[in-house]
């Protein structure tokens, strides 16, 4: 019984997998592109949780260094992505991804 109170990396992996899947569901189900971008942030956070959990487990700070890189890339992605959303909204007056078919052949 006392064993169930020990938090192993498996617990963190399960949490991370659940958060990842919630993000994937958000990307697949929602039509609002801003919500889809937020789902991508959730997915990146799930990856970071895994990295930091194994950084703590393996007693090695490399996981935290990579988590910092993930955060930097997420910031760049958010800036450029939101710029694209604004430019698109200015031209088409919509943020529904079903209406974003300018490049569809």
């Amino acid at each position, binding site marked *: 019984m006392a064993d169930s109170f020990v938090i192993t990396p498996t617990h963190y992996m399960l949490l991370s997998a659940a958060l990842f899947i919630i993000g994937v569901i958000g990307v697949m189900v929602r039509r609002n*592109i801003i919500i889809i971008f937020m789902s991508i942030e959730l997915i990146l956070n799930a990856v970071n949780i895994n990295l930091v959990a194994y950084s703590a487990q393996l007693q090695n700070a490399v996981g935290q260094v990579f988590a910092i890189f993930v955060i930097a890339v997420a910031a*760049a992605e958010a800036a450029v992505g939101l710029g694209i959303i604004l430019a698109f909204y200015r031209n088409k007056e919509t943020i529904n991804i079903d209406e974003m078919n300018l490049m569809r052949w």
Partner: protein
Amino acid sequence: MGTAIAFYFISACILGFAVLVISTKDTVHSVLFLVLDFLFVAALYVLLGAQFLAAIQILVYAGGIVVLYLFVVMLVNLKRPPEAHSDPHRKTKLGLGLAAAVLAELALLAVRSSDMPVRPIVEAAAVPVSGNTEVVGWMLYTSYLIPFEIASMLLLVAMIGAIVLAKREL
């Protein structure tokens, strides 16, 4: 015992707020739930001994990226909400089913692999282990100096790209 309670509480908050982020109708509420989600992820980092990363998470995510999202939500004036009309070709049920299948698969993998012992990396023994700023900063400026510089370059490029994209006319 205390760690377990903290972990389960923080996990429940993270997952609950994540579900609220993707299910709320109002986009502004969604962004605010995202802030709460990021704050609880930062709490989880503190629980794991990564205090520096928790501070970065709060500064960059909860302070920077979310404000960017809020600005865009305010600038994009939604008279017509995107989910107003439903697309008959969209198979939401199928998507949810597939996502549940993937989650079950990942969970099975995680539980199965937990039997294997996790070996600590040998050469890491030289580094005094803690989640503090000193260790992370030392690694960033020695072993990972070039990736660090490339990340700064990437941020510069992203900044210029965002300015170019957001300009009304070039």
